[in-house]
């Protein structure tokens, strides 16, 4: 049994259901009454029509027979055949069921009658008088026919037909009609009872529709008792289908919403994973709620390990934990920046942690942004060191220039030789200053990435010839043996001629500078596996292993006191190597203290040039 209000209403409040049925019930009763009345009226009308028709037909038959009988009577009376006439009259009366059938003379004497006792004249007179009667009704239902007997006189045939059994026919019809009506009524009642069942279902459905119209949408509230019939079952099925459809729609919509949210979350997670900065969201309980890939990598742990773990377990720095606690509390600081150095096998890594609160409803979460700023810090330090070194390198010649200028001004009036010496030194220092400024600019260009390379044809044979020419005098002056060990033919390579020339000049210049008198510098060149290999070998003071590793650093001067006595900015080799590297090559150094050094320059030779 269903407990829903509509069914209760349809079943319990019968008046309510009857309210729904009474129109149909009244209509049924009215139709039944109309049927009964019309059936009775039809019966009466049919009976009357039939009776009149039968009576008319009977009278017509009587008239026709009367005429025939009158004609026959004329002949028989003329022939005085009374016996035959009387049998004929009796037979006709019996056949037609006449209540009166006789032949009478004008004086009223009856010569023939269906009832023999009514005959008043046994014999027929010879002649008689009397007028001829006209055919027609003579009153009291007696019909008269003229009988003209030639040679004797006129007589008349009187006939009276009995009425048809109208009363008996009416009741027969009424009985039949009544029986039929009773059967029809019974059938109507059965049909009505059947319809009543259907109507109860329809009434329940109607109540459900009215409830729906009032705003009720729950399928359980709109359902009707299935026992009410097929309509009720169909209604319930319709409701179930609608509910199922709505459910499917709701599920589909929810699924779409979830899918969209999941896509959004996925996109957000993907976007966060694409960040090179580490991102950690810390909840109120100081546990990690979200960790992106970079955070796990920067903290050298796994994301799965971090998720849900306490911040202190993967960030040992108390300052960070405190900042997270402050950010998740009521007093939210704007942001806290903490830099944490970390010693690792490859050197010191510097991580910057920015902790800032993110408000969520009535409390906040802490967002930790982790950034690897090692390279920035190294670059800053390098820049500062460069500026300091450059300042120092510039100050030395400037100081000399200033001192010798003062000396020339003070003592030059008395001694022109002093003036000449001072000017000479000032001139040299100016050149030195110019070279240092040039080197600093070159280094700045290299570091800024603005140094551009020209793509010239570098004719190596010409280049080495220039070198030989340029440095021959210097080598002779320093009493150093300068040798060029070159193959008979060198290729033409693609590259920036001036910068390659600068690099080889720096190598050769350094070799001559740090080789004492009596030493030897050998410049060799060869093409090996698509590469140009230039070796500059000297028998100079050489370098320690530590110096060998740092000789290409900017402004680096070896710690050897002999080096300190030789002028130099410490930029030449750095520039030479960067220039060669820009060409895709490299410069390496091998050295042994007090024995000499070998600098090897390697430049790739593009196949197209070969």
């Amino acid at each position, binding site marked *: 049994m269903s407990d829903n209000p509509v069914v209760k209403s349809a079943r319990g409040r019968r008046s309510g259901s009857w309210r729904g049925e009474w129109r149909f019930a009244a209509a049924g009763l009215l139709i039944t009454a109309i049927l009964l009345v019309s059936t009775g009226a039809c019966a009466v009308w049919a009976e009357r029509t039939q009776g009149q028709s039968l009576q008319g037909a009977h009278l017509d038959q009587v008239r026709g027979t009367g005429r025939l009988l009158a004609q026959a009577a004329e002949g028989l009376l003329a022939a005085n055949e009374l016996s035959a006439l009387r049998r004929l009259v009796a037979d006709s009366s019996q056949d037609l069921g006449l209540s009166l059938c006789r032949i009478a003379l004008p004086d009223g004497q009856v010569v023939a009658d269906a009832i023999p006792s009514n005959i008043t004249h046994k014999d027929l007179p010879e002649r008689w008088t009397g007028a001829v009667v006209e055919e027609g009704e003579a009153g009291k239902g007696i019909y008269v026919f003229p009988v003209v007997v030639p040679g004797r006189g006129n007589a008349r045939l009187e006939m009276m037909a009995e009425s048809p059994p109208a009363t008996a026919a009416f009741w027969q019809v009424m009985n039949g009609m009544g029986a039929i009506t009773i059967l029809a009524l019974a059938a109507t009642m059965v049909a009505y009872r059947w319809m009543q069942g259907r109507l109860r279902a329809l009434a329940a459905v109607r109540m459900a529709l009215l409830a729906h119209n009032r705003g009720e949408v729950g399928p359980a509230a709109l359902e009707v008792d299935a026992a009410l019939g097929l309509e009720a079952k169909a209604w319930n099925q319709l409701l179930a289908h609608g509910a199922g459809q709505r459910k499917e729609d709701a599920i589909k919509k929810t699924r779409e919403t979830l899918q969209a949210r999941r896509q959004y979350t996925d996109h957000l997670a993907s976007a966060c994973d694409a960040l090179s900065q580490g991102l950690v969201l810390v909840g109120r309980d100081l546990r990690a709620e979200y960790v992106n890939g970079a955070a796990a990598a920067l903290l050298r742990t796994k994301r799965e390990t971090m998720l849900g773990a306490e911040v202190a377990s993967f960030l040992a720095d108390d300052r960070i934990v405190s900042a997270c606690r402050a950010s998740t509390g009521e007093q939210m600081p704007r942001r806290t920046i903490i830099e944490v150095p970390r010693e690792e096998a490859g050197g010191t890594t510097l991580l910057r942690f920015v902790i800032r609160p993110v408000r969520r409803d009535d409390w906040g979460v802490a967002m930790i942004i982790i950034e690897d700023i090692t*390279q920035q810090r190294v670059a800053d330090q390098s820049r500062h060191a460069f500026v300091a070194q450059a300042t120092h390198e510039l100050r030395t010649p400037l100081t000399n220039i200033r001192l010798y200028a003062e000396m020339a001004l003070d003592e030059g009036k008395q001694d022109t030789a002093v003036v000449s010496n001072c000017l000479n030194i000032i001139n040299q220092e100016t050149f030195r200053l110019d070279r240092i400024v040039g080197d600093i600019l070159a280094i700045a260009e290299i570091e800024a990435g603005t140094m551009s390379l020209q793509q010239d044809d570098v004719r190596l044979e010409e280049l080495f010839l220039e070198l030989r020419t340029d440095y021959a005098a210097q080598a002779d002056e320093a009493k150093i043996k300068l040798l060029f060990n070159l193959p008979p033919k060198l290729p033409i390579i693609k590259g920036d001629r001036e910068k390659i020339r600068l690099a080889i000049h720096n190598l050769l210049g350094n070799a001559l500078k740090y080789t004492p008198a009596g030493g030897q510098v050998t410049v060799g060149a060869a093409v090996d596996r698509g590469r140009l290999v230039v070796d500059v070998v000297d028998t100079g003071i050489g370098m320690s292993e530590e110096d060998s590793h740092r000789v290409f650093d900017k402004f680096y001067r070896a710690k050897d006191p002999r080096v300190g006595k030789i002028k130099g900015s410490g930029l030449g080799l750095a520039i030479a190597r960067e220039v060669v590297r820009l060409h895709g090559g490299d410069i390496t150094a091998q050295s042994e203290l007090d024995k000499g050094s070998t600098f090897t320059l390697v430049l790739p030779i593009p196949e197209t040039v070969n």
Partner: protein
Amino acid sequence: MPLKERKVGAVHVLRLEGPLRGEEAVPFRDRLVQSVNASLGRCVVDGAAIPYVDSRGLEVLAEAGDELAQTGQSLKLCGLNETVRQVLELTELAPRFEFFADVNAAVRSFL
């Protein structure tokens, strides 16, 4: 296959001199992974001396690129010749990497 590693500031620069091909790519991959891990991803591959790359080499580069992508970083390649660059473009691997003209430019990208 000469493989050289140097540091420019805090950035590891891995320079391969020769083709990145076949089984020779394996030691390169190992060294690259080691370098990436040691430097927290501050790593640059100097490809100026790589004349060509075969499928195994491409695979190694793609693996390294994907590995770095998971931490929001990307493999920085510099100095690649036109041939290698075209191969990366044609194989649709190029979007996985960052390309720079030279080492300095690549190193500066970490600033």
